[in-house]
């Protein structure tokens, strides 16, 4: 697995200069609200097989994000004002502080910065590294805060042209969540594997 990941990286061309990354990020900017469908596969040490879910991610402007899950069960999570509120069918909403879920804080930071085309905000929270392979690109975001990095070691965003296609969140304990975005979301295999998804994102899948 790790070998495959490394291969995926080594086949890419060497890191592009910073201004290139800034130009790319600027080109990703959308006006709010911006919505995209997603399909997520979570590979975790507590699970025998990956957990797949799908729905829609929406940036509602400023630091407001909505993650709506349609399958396997409906749930809406809203991030606003440093608070996460989860609403499930038939359950009373529950909310918790954003700081209790560093994963989400990182997601918010990266997502909002990317959709806002805001390279400087991205640079505030992450060390940014861009790799290009023709039209395909890959942004590796490493949290600068050591405490956050212990929980979320890296986020990798893959894209084609000015369209992000994948978001891969690598957690400190080895768990990985891979989100296929936009049109790619429809291509989530019934029984995904980590390598398969990585290849799909990099555009190297057969």
């Amino acid at each position, binding site marked *: 697995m790790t070998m495959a990941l490394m291969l995926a990286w080594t086949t890419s061309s060497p890191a592009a200069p910073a201004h290139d990354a800034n130009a790319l990020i600027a080109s990703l900017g959308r006006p709010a609200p911006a919505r995209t469908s997603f399909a*997520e596969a*979570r590979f*975790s*040490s*507590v*699970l*025998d*097989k*990956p*957990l797949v*879910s799908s729905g829609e991610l929406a940036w509602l402007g400023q630091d407001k994000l909505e*993650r709506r*899950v349609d399958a*396997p*069960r409906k*749930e809406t*999570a809203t*991030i606003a004002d*440093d*608070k*996460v509120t*989860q609403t*499930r069918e038939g359950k009373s909403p529950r909310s*918790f*502080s954003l*700081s*209790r*879920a*560093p*994963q*989400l804080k990182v*997601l918010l930071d990266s997502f909002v910065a990317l959709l806002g085309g805001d390279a400087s905000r991205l640079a505030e929270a992450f060390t940014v590294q861009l790799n290009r392979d023709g039209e395909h690109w890959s942004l590796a975001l490493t949290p600068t805060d050591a405490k956050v990095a212990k*929980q*979320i070691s890296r986020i990798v965003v893959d894209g084609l042209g000015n369209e992000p296609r994948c978001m891969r969140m690598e*957690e400190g304990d080895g*768990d990985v*969540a891979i989100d296929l975005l936009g049109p790619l979301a429809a291509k989530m295999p019934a029984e995904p594997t980590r390598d398969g998804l990585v290849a799909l994102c990099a555009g190297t899948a057969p």
Partner: protein
Amino acid sequence: MRFAPRAALLAAWLVCLGLLYVLITHTLVVGTDLRSFMPAPTTPDQKLLMDQVGEGPGSRLLLVAIDGVPASQLASLSHGLAASLRKQPAYPQVVNGDFDLAALDNRFLFYRYLLSPTLDTTAMDAPFLSDQLQQRLDDMASPAASMLKSLLPRDPTLELLKLAERWTPAKSPQVKDGVWFSSKGEALLLVQTQAAGFDPEAQEAAINGIRSAFAALPGSQGAHLLLSGPGYFSVVVNAQTRHEADVIGRISTIGFIVLLLVAYRSVTSLLFGALPVATGGLAGIAVMALCFREVHGITLAFGFTLLGVAQEYPIRLLSHRRAGETALASVRGLWPLLMTAIASACIAYLAFYASGVGGLQQLAVFTITGLLAAGLATRYLLPHLLPERARDIATTPGLARLRTFFDELPRPRWLPVPIALAAAAMLYFAPGSFWENNLAALTPLPTDMLMTDARLRGELGAPDVRYLLVLQAHDADGVLALSERIEPDIDRLLAGKALDSVELPSRYLPSAATQKARQAKLPDTQALQKMLASALQDTPFKKDLFAPFVADVAAARSAPVLTPERFASSPLGQRLSAMLVNRGDHWVGLATLSGVHDAAAFAPLAAKTGGAVRLLDLKQASESLVAEYRTRILKALAVATLLLIATIAFALRSFRRAWHVLAPMTLATFMVLAVERVAGIPLSLFHLVSLILAGGLGLHYALFFERDTGDPDEQRRTLHATIVCVLSALLVFGMLAWSSIPVLRAIGLTVSLGVAFHFCISILMAPHASKE
């Protein structure tokens, strides 16, 4: 007496004082508990009040706010401070809004099934487990995944989160970066101290601990730490009182020295004149140190003030010396009068002893011993030290003219009538309430400090300091059971907005019966494993993931129920311990309340439980305490007054002469009362105490003015002595009257006014000058 024996006597006297000093330094223990100056409680509610004032959970709470740096840095400072304080046993509870799963000690983690109410409404069966696992699966697909996944193997039903929710204060401030923030953008913390709230010394140690923990945090430079709460106030009051008493003491000492130098133009007289008071002070402390286990710091400070009266004895001796007369002869002439004055002052101070308040009793022992020692030293030691020849004070330039001036003042015999009428009218028309019943009015806190406290308390939802819900049962478990029983009633009160929130003891620990009932609902290991296996069938969870859960359920099923004593070894248990009080034959649970809007709404609850649950109004209890206390002091004063009349009548061998001494005293006392009341000052206990002190001083003036010697020189000496005494008293107490501390101000104002009235009225009513 020639030089050598005089030097020997002086040396012997100084050695005695030195020995007393050594004795004192070896035996004196100075206490700081402010409660020893509060009235002795009589009813159970009052007793509870006195305990709560110092040791209740509310009084041990410190409110902490951090500001001065950007919010993200404030949050990390808050985290850092909380983490550092939680390691110290001096702070049983530190809350700052962060998610504190460590609140339930690891050793008690498996008890969560007995502590959480989950099993009250459901069984731990296959459908329940299946539903829970399905929910956890949804969680894993949700943003909460990374937060929850470490809990899953041990706690798939998230019992810990339910407990954390239950233990989180109902009304809490907004959370940013994981910690509480006020609406003004300060990071907020609540720290419970081990130290009692009214023990300023222990509180100071606790507060210094917080400050140094804060200073040790990286990035704390530039940030500002703001503290509030009863414990902090007691430290501030203590420091402020000490500081002001020091400053005032220093200034008035200097003034006093200058005054004596001007009056007697002799350094030797000044130095020798100080010896009797020093003797009185040291003897007083020594006796007090021997009689009491611990001497209160306030007793020492006030005691020296009250002992200032004793300075009159050497002043009288110095002023009344005639040219050519030995000091011994002068003192012999003065002694009968001086003895009457000392005896009557001692009788007045006996009233303090009768008050039954520990601090005032100490004060009585101290002053009575001090006055006697100073008086005896003036009579039997001082005359032998003074130079044989002295300047006759009667020849002081201007004194004769002053005496003539006083003598020529009109003094109609009917004078007492208008004075009495004026006093009565002023008392009758005075605004506001006559008595100050509020104990808190005696605490000298700057208003902005109180406003800060109210603001932080409001933001933190910290408990009300006025009300407590008292739950009474025969043992601790009974209190917990009672607390569980009234939970529905309390919920109704909360829903009806009678109060904002409540913290019941059962919130932290259910009663043994409830724990046993929950225990009985736990399946055995075999059954649990079977149910778990079937629930796991359709999930992607690893099959052996929940082994720690199975182990915990087994442990919870067979463990003895968690008692408050065992629980007390954890921080949360400490919190509970503070709420459960053993009061001899029964136990009391104290539930703190916040935002009580309708105190009367608790009455049905009290009726329903037969008084086992009742709302304790600390304000009302303290007011009744003060009122009862006052009644006792007034009774003691009445007895002291009768004794005083008897003593003076006996000493002067004449009721008519006694009348000439006592009438001006009484009138002056009522004038002080009247003036203070007209100024809108409600009278506190300290005003009463000061009236006694002023009365003691006034008695001296009246006694000496009443003395009809027929000798104009002696009259001039009397005037001189009295003016020196009045000026020195005005100097000391006039300074106190400017103090920012209500207690010191009450004493200063009352005594200054008293001295002025006593002097004027005694001189105007002095019999020898009246044209008979």
